């Protein structure tokens, strides 16, 4: 099976879905780039992270639309096109730019179906890159999926690897509801085996990345490979954990988490979002409620502190939860000291 980076896997999913369904369009800033440039080279960019490369030459400027820097118009136009029967994939470049177009996402897109009495269909996908660790500062590094997970009407996807990303994006494009698709910047170059043929990964179905007996570890996006590193280290001491990657935060696969917790009695949640009103806190509440009878120890949440993302690498390293902090949390939940 071919090895693909997450960048290429998402790119392949876009190609395959645009090929399959003429209603699929892509729009955003520099999704091809080069329009109006002096080199005359169209597709001078292919997306700031190269994710949309090749789409313009294959599908043309009618379906691969470079936009001005106008996030509200990008999301709003994508949503309007979806209401009118297309299946747009809008790209917001950095997840932080949600701040510019929040109204279109949470007052418009998210509410149509309910507010219009179930009559509307808004199959829009809004893609964006998230995550800290690259020295990009407070306005280009945030993991804001908790913010949008809180909004009824949106489905939220947070892939941790190339294989899932491809299947989840194809599902997102075929899904009839609005989907926000978060791509962690640090995961773009990470490769794994990705089937060539199109496939879908169902929303609300967690992936059991590792099986173990001592602790249930739930992690999202880049925190999944970090948790794997921690588990590798702990395995040498005979500690084994379930590692659950929910893959979507809305819908959330509560049952898989609770079933695992039944077996282990101990829960560590690893989340790159800030700690207040986070997905980690949401899952901790799930454990304290439906999972109460299973708990043998207090739930531990491994998150950044309640601060914006700092610029200096010295601080950013301390901000992002890393394998060592995850390892320490697992020891702690087992009562084996920090």
């Amino acid at each position, binding site marked *: 099976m071919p090895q693909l980076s997450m960048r290429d896997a998402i790119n392949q999913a876009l190609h395959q879905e645009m090929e399959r369904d003429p209603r699929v369009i892509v729009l955003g800033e520099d999704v091809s780039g*080069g329009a109006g*440039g*002096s080199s005359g080279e169209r597709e*001078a960019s292919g997306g700031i992270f190269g994710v949309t490369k090749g789409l313009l030459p294959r599908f043309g400027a009618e379906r691969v639309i470079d936009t*001005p820097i106008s996030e509200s118009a990008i999301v709003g136009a994508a949503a309007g096109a979806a209401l009118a029967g297309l299946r747009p994939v809008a790209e917001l470049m950095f997840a932080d730019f949600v701040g510019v177009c929040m109204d279109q996402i949470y007052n418009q897109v998210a509410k149509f179906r309910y507010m219009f009495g179930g009559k509307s269909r808004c199959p829009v996908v809004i893609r964006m890159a998230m995550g800290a660790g690259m*020295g990009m500062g407070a306005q280009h590094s945030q993991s804001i999926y908790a913010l949008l997970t809180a909004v009824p009407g949106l489905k939220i996807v947070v892939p941790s690897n190339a294989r899932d990303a491809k299947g989840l994006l194809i599902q997102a494009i075929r899904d009839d509801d609005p989907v926000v698709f978060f791509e962690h910047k640090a995961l773009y170059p990470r490769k794994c085996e990705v089937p060539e043929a199109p496939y879908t990964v169902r929303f609300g179905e967690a992936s059991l990345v590792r099986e173990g007996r001592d602790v249930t570890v739930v992690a999202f996006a880049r925190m999944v490979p970090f948790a794997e590193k921690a588990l590798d280290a702990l395995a040498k001491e005979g500690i084994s954990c379930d590692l659950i990657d929910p893959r979507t935060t809305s819908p959330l696969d509560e049952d898989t988490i609770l079933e695992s917790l039944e077996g282990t009695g101990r829960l560590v949640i690893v989340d790159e979002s800030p700690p207040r009103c986070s997905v980690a806190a949401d899952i901790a509440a799930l454990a304290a409620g439906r999972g109460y009878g299973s708990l043998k120890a207090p739930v531990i949440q491994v998150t950044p502190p309640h601060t914006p993302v700092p*610029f*200096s690498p010295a601080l950013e390293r*301390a901000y992002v939860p890393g394998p060592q902090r995850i390892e320490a949390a697992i020891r702690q939940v087992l009562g084996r000291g920090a």
Partner: protein
Amino acid sequence: MPLEKSRLLAAYRRMKTIREFEERLHVEIATGEIPGFTHLYAGQEAVAVGVCTDLTDQDYIVSTHRGHGHCIAKGCDIDGMMKEIYGRRAGLCKGKGGSMHIADFDKGMLGANAIVGGGPPLAVGAAIACKLRRGAGAQGHVSVAFGGDGSCNQGTVFEAMNLAVVLAAPAIFVFENNGYSEHTGASYAVGSNDITARAAAFGMSAERVDGSDFFAVHAAMRRALERARAGGGPGAIEAMTTRFYGHFEGDPQRYRAKDEVARHRATMDCLVRFRASVAQDGSLSGEELDAIDREVLEEIDAAVTAARAAPLPPESDLTTDVYISY
């Protein structure tokens, strides 16, 4: 009224400082020592300095992701800026902001912004403050919003321009049209390809100037400033300029013709044009300018050496300054 000699020299020094600051960063970034995303201002110096020359520390500016030039033009400390860009504790923002988020409130520099279109509404707010503080009949202070051609397509910028007109706020919108919104040409992304007319349509005076000509920018700014300081409301300047580097460092610039930058360096270099202009009217000598060149190079060199040697922030800084009290 032409600028007096000392101010001409100061303007040249600032333009040269911006140029050398950016040229040096271009070299240093390649070493991998500077974290993150850096957007260089080289090529656009006459805009920042032409706009800021007549501003005082009590006048405000808001800046963009391409903000080093605005900071230097407004008088920010070079050492503090360099340390910030290197992520050091002694940086202007304690290493927490970085290249895209330099601010210096003592200088009326309200911050660079990594959200395109994020700044102009803030500038209108600062202009409201200036307006409230202006005594009857007195000359007031102003607020300047720097933005690129890309920013003129953001709703926030439309809203800010309209609000400034509605309130007759002393806000000046400076659009630096360097031809590109990231990797897309302004001729494509700005529908009318006429930012000046767009600003004028909001009901303010707006003019287009040659952004490589310090004197043209300065004269346009002086007109806008006189009007705004006297209570005549907002204005806009579209400065036609060019960037000598990519959108960010590492940008392969495939959207640009191979010889475009070389051509612009040969014909649109604001420093060369400034020198030619002062030589022609005899206001400054080549020796005086050469001396500034040497001093600037030494200053930038010292700033890089100091930044490299400066300590990183301690981990305990991570959770400070989220709030004033909590």
